């Protein structure tokens, strides 16, 4: 794997150069609210690689909250139909992904592109997409990527990976696509001491994690095991379920949540479009069938679906890693105090009989 050392100036130039052929997305800080958004950059000057974790996961770009996938016109007079596909390929660069968000994309890749069927819509967004990750320097209090092996640095899945060091950015190449970009530039190769420096940066970042995060590390796999083997007491699920307000926020901010709904709607001009929008297993109507039969009526049944999904079979049985990348966003937004780290705590308490 080749490595280079680039100045901040050269990083900007890279973004600039990519803009000629790609839509470039990256973290930027809204000057009014100070919120961080990972969004398309009209001007690469707005790219902020030192910004804190973006409020919303980067999946928005590859798996939008709502998107049109089909358009059709049905004329009942003539009984004729015109139909057209609505998802098109656009080359994109995700510039400066946090390792947790990169891991989130890799989880979506495994889910949408692996298994029996490939999801055409996701594939179309993903196919010509460059991933440039950026080692995390400033974890938030709710972050716990160290527990889920998804940070603070990236070790797989990127085309290029950046780490801010004293004398510039260390750039690691992770793929042929990445190498092709490097070859087109005249970048200075990195030296051995840069790698040592990077290790120190990562170690320093790990030290910044709250004790709870590092402490939970071994517990996550114990909890996963416990959930998978079905040993969680129903009282614990009820306790967790009782706190859920069914707002769906956890699923919408989660980089690995992939559930969606499909709905056909009519526009004012009589045209119809098929929309696909994100959905959440916490909603009451999620599993309801025609005739109002709902096999998943009690809220705890719906709520434990989330934790089965993140901490058991859906991801880990198939891929040997959790479906959670430790970004902590669900902990941040949950009004019911049942973000994933807390649920690990609750189950941990059940296992230890109350003593942590």
């Amino acid at each position, binding site marked *: 794997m080749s490595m280079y050392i680039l100045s901040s100036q050269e990083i900007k130039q890279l973004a600039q150069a990519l803009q000629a052929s790609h839509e470039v997305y990256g973290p930027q800080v809204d000057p009014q609210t100070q919120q961080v958004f990972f969004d398309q950059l009209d001007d690469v000057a707005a790219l902020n690689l030192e910004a804190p974790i973006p409020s919303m996961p980067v999946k928005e770009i590859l798996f939008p909250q709502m998107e049109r996938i*089909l358009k059709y016109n049905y004329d009942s007079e003539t*009984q004729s*139909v015109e139909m057209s596909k609505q998802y098109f390929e656009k080359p994109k660069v995700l510039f400066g992904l946090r390792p947790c968000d990169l891991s989130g994309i890799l989880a979506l890749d495994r889910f949408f592109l692996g298994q029996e069927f490939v999801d055409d819509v996701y594939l179309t967004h993903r196919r010509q997409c460059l991933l440039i990750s950026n080692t995390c320097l400033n974890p938030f209090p709710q972050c716990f990527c160290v527990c889920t092996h998804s940070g603070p640095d990236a070790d797989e899945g990127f085309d290029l990976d950046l780490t801010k060091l004293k004398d510039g950015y260390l750039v690691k190449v992770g793929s042929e696509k990445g190498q092709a970009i490097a070859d087109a530039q005249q970048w200075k190769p990195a030296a051995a001491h840069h790698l040592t420096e990077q290790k120190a940066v990562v170690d320093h970042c790990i030290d910044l994690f709250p004790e709870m995060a590092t402490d939970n590390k071994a517990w996550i796999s114990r909890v996963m095991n416990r959930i998978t083997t079905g040993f969680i007491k129903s009282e614990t699920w009820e306790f967790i379920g009782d706190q859920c307000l069914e707002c769906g926020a956890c699923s919408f901010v989660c980089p690995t949540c992939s559930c969606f709904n499909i709905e*056909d709607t009519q526009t004012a001009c009589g045209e119809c479009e098929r929309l696909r929008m994100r959905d959440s297993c916490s909603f009451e109507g999620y599993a309801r*069938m025609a005739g109002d039969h709902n096999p998943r009526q009690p809220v705890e049944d719906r709520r434990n679906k989330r934790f089965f999904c993140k901490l058991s079979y859906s991801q880990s049985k198939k891929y040997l890693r959790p479906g959670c990348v430790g970004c902590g966003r669900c902990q941040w937004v949950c009004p019911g105090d049942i973000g994933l780290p807390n649920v690990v705590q609750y189950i941990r308490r059940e296992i230890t009989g109350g003593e942590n």
Partner: protein
Amino acid sequence: MSNCHGNHEQGNCKTTGLCPIVTFPEVVNIDEIRDEIPEVKTFYLSFPNKDVEREFRIKSGQFIMCTVFGAGEFAVSLPPSPENDRFHISVRAVGKVTHALHALRVGDKLGVRGPFGNGFPFEDIKGKNIIYVAGGIGLIPLRSSIVHALQHREDFGRIILLYGARSGKDLMYQEDIKEWQQNAGFETFITIDRAEAGWDGEVGYVNQLIEKANVPVDNSVAFVCGPPVMFNSVIGEFLKRGMSEDAIISTLERQMKCGIGKCQHCAVGRTLVCTDGPVYTYRQIKTLGEQI
């Protein structure tokens, strides 16, 4: 991928042999509409694109996602047998999309994606007795398998149908049943819930037919489809008689949106009904740990 009709992105089809229409619906024509029973109509369909029609091959027990243009999509079983049978669906009007379907006329168009799902096991059950148990419109998903089994009559032992509905006019596929009854070696036992004028057949619930039919449990498989109450009492009866949990086969119904294992609406326990099902053995259903 030899018979890929190119409806979707190349490489999307990872299944063996059958190539489903995955994301972009294929247009079908409604050639004929029959009133089946109250609230249920059967729609006979054909593909204007003859290349697709040739490639569109189904397995008994599979389903399609059907688009009613302007209203939406819903999951529906495939009643035709895989061999020379007219392509059709039978649909009960229960909600938004299915009511919109019932309002259509001959010549209207629908969209079709699929076929999806695992289908009934046929190779594994050769040489066995087959017992079909259906309640109400539960006969729809079983029809394909019945016709298929009768087309290969010599491969099986006894073939028995136990069928129950609320009343005489709620019995599905009456013409088919008459035809099947003429087939040597197809035993039918039919019941309705309450006695009514003009009915001289059995009265009572379908589980009572198990005794009447003297159902063999050894070397038999049972395909059971119907409302959950019926399902539970029939399964109870079979288990009491010593039938193995692996030999009882059913289809599960869930809200479905994508049909290809991505939207996760149809998740049951560790499985997704659209790709791992809809056909499950009772042993599997028992371990899913969710309501049926």
